């Protein structure tokens, strides 16, 4: 890897880490998401900035080419995150539908009472 590419990777990883940290501090993402993203972006920063650390990845995955192992882990992480978010999205969708139905029923009752009051 050239020195320029090395610097570029470190800066990118640092920007991602700081961006997520800022989001977490401003409470724009939940605690659990903040923990997951901060940990993973911090690990990413370590891997790109500490040259020997990538060997740990190679031993872990059995892949001989370091960038492939790194990319593979990132894809795996994103797939897991995607599944997690899909599950949460469905849960929120269910809650939203339930809430909307309750609002519609309350609205119906309010209209009924208003009409009754008007008639009286």
């Amino acid at each position, binding site marked *: 890897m050239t020195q320029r590419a090395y610097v570029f990777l470190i800066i990118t990883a640092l920007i991602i880490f700081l961006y997520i940290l800022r989001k977490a501090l401003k409470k724009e993402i939940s605690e659990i998401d903040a923990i997951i993203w901060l940990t993973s972006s911090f690990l990413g920063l370590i891997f790109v900035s500490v040259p020997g650390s990538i060997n740990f990845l190679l031993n872990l995955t059995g892949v001989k080419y370091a960038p492939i192992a790194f990319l593979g882990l990132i894809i795996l992480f994103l797939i897991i995150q995607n599944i997690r978010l899909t599950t949460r999205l469905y849960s929120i969708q269910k809650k939203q*539908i339930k809430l*909307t*139905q309750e*609002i*519609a*029923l309350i*609205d*119906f009752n309010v209209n009924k009472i208003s009409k009754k009051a008007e008639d009286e």
Partner: protein
Amino acid sequence: MPNLLIKFVGNEMSRNKYSNIISITSKKRFEIKYDNIVNYSIVKNKKIIAIIPTYNEELSIKKTCTDLIKHHPNIDILVVNDSSTDNTAKIVESMSSVKLITSPINLGIGGAVQLGLKFAYKNNYDVAFQFDGDGQHRANEFDKLLNRLEDDASDIAIGSRFMFNDKTNFRSSFLRRLGINFFAMLITFLIRKKITDPTSGFRAFNKKAIAVFSKNYPFDFPEPEVIIIAKKKKLNISEVFVKMNEREFGVSSISPLKSVKYMFKVTMAILLAFFRENV
């Protein structure tokens, strides 16, 4: 007194409801065709509601409601306006005998039907009908479904277009029938009960079924999934032959081009519903 005209009757049947009028036991095939039957809601003194989920049905909703009122003046009609962007709500509001619930956001067909069932559950209705607002379902077919709930101790009665090979009945396009037949075979295999029209939206739910489905109703492909869930919740399902009309206005939400995609999705949804632990 109901005016009964006997045409042909099913095997070994004896209908308790008409026991004072007729009791039949035969190995031949029968069917009872009845005209001018006394309104069931009066006969049985049951609290009945027709739930009409609608989304932009301004062209047909008035006719649908008027037909229902004409045929069944004693049942309550609830239009669930699923956040329509046209004049559906205004038209329904102008009909004093029709109840209207408007959802603040679009829930989809499953959410809209469940909203109606929640209303039925909270207001202690004995029977809830699901009835399309596009004019496909016939108001004069209500009694068939009601009778089935009573006679066969069914919890859900489904109006089927395909129980008999009636060429005069509206049966949708060939491609659609092919798809419906496939779903019917799949569901029949899974629940071990003959189902001929799993996508029919003309259904009657008794109190037990209202309680179950007011709490848990599928959203994405509700009609076939409801049958699987009902079976898993140990509810009795039965079908009744009904005649349906071709929709007069608007287009179906499932275009022929999307049918293959739809087939795959519904098949997956049916299988998922069947294998799911918590339905």
